[in-house]
């Protein structure tokens, strides 16, 4: 079987409120998959105010605009050289940053973005996609081509939960396979007066995974530009993130991975 015809998995992070942690968790998922030896591309499709580039402190002029333009002028041109690369301690993955200029975001066509993803998916084990919190034309198209949609929510106060409910109901009307949508709760033990069981009852669905609240680690990771799963300090949040990733790789969390520098995997992906 020709390897190049195998499409990798597309994992999209979606939510109905902003600031629920899509970007941070997306980055950590990409990092952890890369650490485990998979080839990974992380795409920032919050086209107007995307933060992936900021959080990873990447310095690049390439963006999704470059890729779309290239596809239009010459669709057989290889795209991978036009991606930004994030590297930390020999672990690296590719990044598609949001457009450099905000006005570019306005002129990008959803169709050409989808074409880029369709082309790239044959070249990566995983494509991780960060989105905005709305049912836009682009987001609906991204949800369609995704292998898995990670629908992220937090429990802070009633309006957020109302929007989560509306979002979950709307996702259900799209008639995807039941196991395509994964409901993930972030910052589970944050200050709130709302009972988790009530939320589960309102949503009518159980959470697939729960991440603990660790605002300080998250803040530090953003400040230093180093993803939590790649830093030396292991917190509960790091472990919960790794265990989420293990659910997506079908092989359990590699707790005893080899020393990075001597790992055979790093020879291929270093």
């Amino acid at each position, binding site marked *: 079987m020709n390897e190049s015809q195998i499409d990798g998995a597309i994992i999209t992070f979606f939510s109905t*409120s902003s600031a629920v942690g899509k970007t941070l968790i997306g980055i950590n998922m990409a990092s952890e998959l890369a650490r485990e030896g998979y080839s990974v591309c992380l795409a920032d499709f919050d086209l107007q105010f995307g933060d992936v580039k*900021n959080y990873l402190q990447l310095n690049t002029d390439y963006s999704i605009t470059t890729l779309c333009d290239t596809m239009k002028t010459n669709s057989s041109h290889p795209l991978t050289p036009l991606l930004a690369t994030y590297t930390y301690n020999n672990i690296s993955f590719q990044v598609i940053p949001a457009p450099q200029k905000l006005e570019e975001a306005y002129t990008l066509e959803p169709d050409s973005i989808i074409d880029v993803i369709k082309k790239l998916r044959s070249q990566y084990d995983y494509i991780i996609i960060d989105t905005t919190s709305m049912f836009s034309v682009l987001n609906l198209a991204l949800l369609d081509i995704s292998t898995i949609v990670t629908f992220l929510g937090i429990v*802070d106060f009633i309006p957020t939960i109302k929007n989560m409910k509306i979002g979950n109901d709307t996702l259900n009307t799209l008639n995807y396979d039941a196991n395509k949508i994964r409901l993930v709760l972030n910052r589970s033990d944050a200050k709130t007066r709302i009972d988790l069981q009530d939320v589960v009852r309102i949503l009518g669905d159980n959470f697939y995974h729960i991440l603990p609240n660790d605002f300080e680690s998250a803040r530090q990771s953003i400040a230093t530009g180093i993803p939590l799963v790649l830093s030396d300090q292991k917190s509960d949040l790091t472990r919960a993130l790794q265990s989420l990733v293990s659910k997506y790789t079908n092989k359990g969390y590699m707790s005893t991975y080899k020393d990075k520098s001597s790992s055979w995997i790093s020879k291929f992906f270093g």
Partner: protein
Amino acid sequence: MMMHNIMLVEGNRLMLEQLSNIINNTENVKLVARYQDANEALGQGIVFTPSVILLDADHQDSIRVLEEFSRVFPNAAIICTGEKWHAESSSLYVNAGAKCFLVKPFSSDDLTEAIASFSNSTFNTTSKVITFFSPKGKSGKTTLIANLAMAIARRSNSTVGIIDADLQFGDMALFFNLTPKSTIVEAARDTDFLSPVSLNSYYVPLVKNVSVLCGTKEPSLIDRVSIPALESLINMSKNLFQYLLIDVPAGFNPTSIAAAEMSDITYIVSMLNGGYELQHIQRALEIFKCWPDYQKRVKTLLTRVEPCTITAQKQLADAIGYPVEGIIPNAFLEISDAVDDGHMALDLNPNSILSQRINFLAKKIIMNKQDDEDDF
């Protein structure tokens, strides 16, 4: 209840009959005279001492005729009637002496509502329109708008309207614990048949002088609110309220752009979360700079500012490179407690920093409006 004597002037013979029937079936009004010819009405109508004149405005000469009627009947309230409400001609009518406009054929309720609206207060001609824009959402602006509306209404004794145009996930109804019968979707659907007076019934009154036009109930309904319809709703609402506060979806999209274009002030609202919020404001400002008068029309507001001090405000302004108009402290627990209970966070301690900051902002907005009016 006061009885109103109505004189009907209608060029179309069939419409004259239809409208007469409607007036005769309306409570607290009496049809005292009716004319097909405006000149006849001008010459003879005076003997019937009408208190309300319904005047056909669907002809080229309508402004001159209207001026003539307001000269001959200085004590009567004149309501213009026509096929369709137009924002452009509306201000001409008002300047020529009309109280308001009704789309023909109107219902008894429309007529009652119209008469009630100008009996209570004068029809509004100058309105301050303010859009609340946020780059990424989760900005705290729903809380801010709701509280600000209350504060403006209380301080200035003015009418304040809120339009929840955050079309996919508008929270205004939930904040005020409302289950509205009509929302922006119905108003947009009916916009061709509405005039400011009839639009009023789509708004839900909250407290004295504050009303809200609630958002959509589910995301799939957004397609039902077209941009022209939204623009028309904003234009009509300007006639209803002295202050109009508009909540829009996050980021630059047709809705937020249209609302900002129509606004006197656009606030860029962002919540400090330890991320790249200030950069997002700068990025948004770059776009607004295409307006030649952006410095006057675009202002920034930051929420969850701790400590909420003048020094912090100055530092933030320096970091952004643009003045910061207001800062709001972190009041998550106060606000979520109130909202979860289904009431507003404004009935909390009026001496809290949150209330103080919102009142301060309300004062600035009121002064800004008065300054503009003095310029005339």
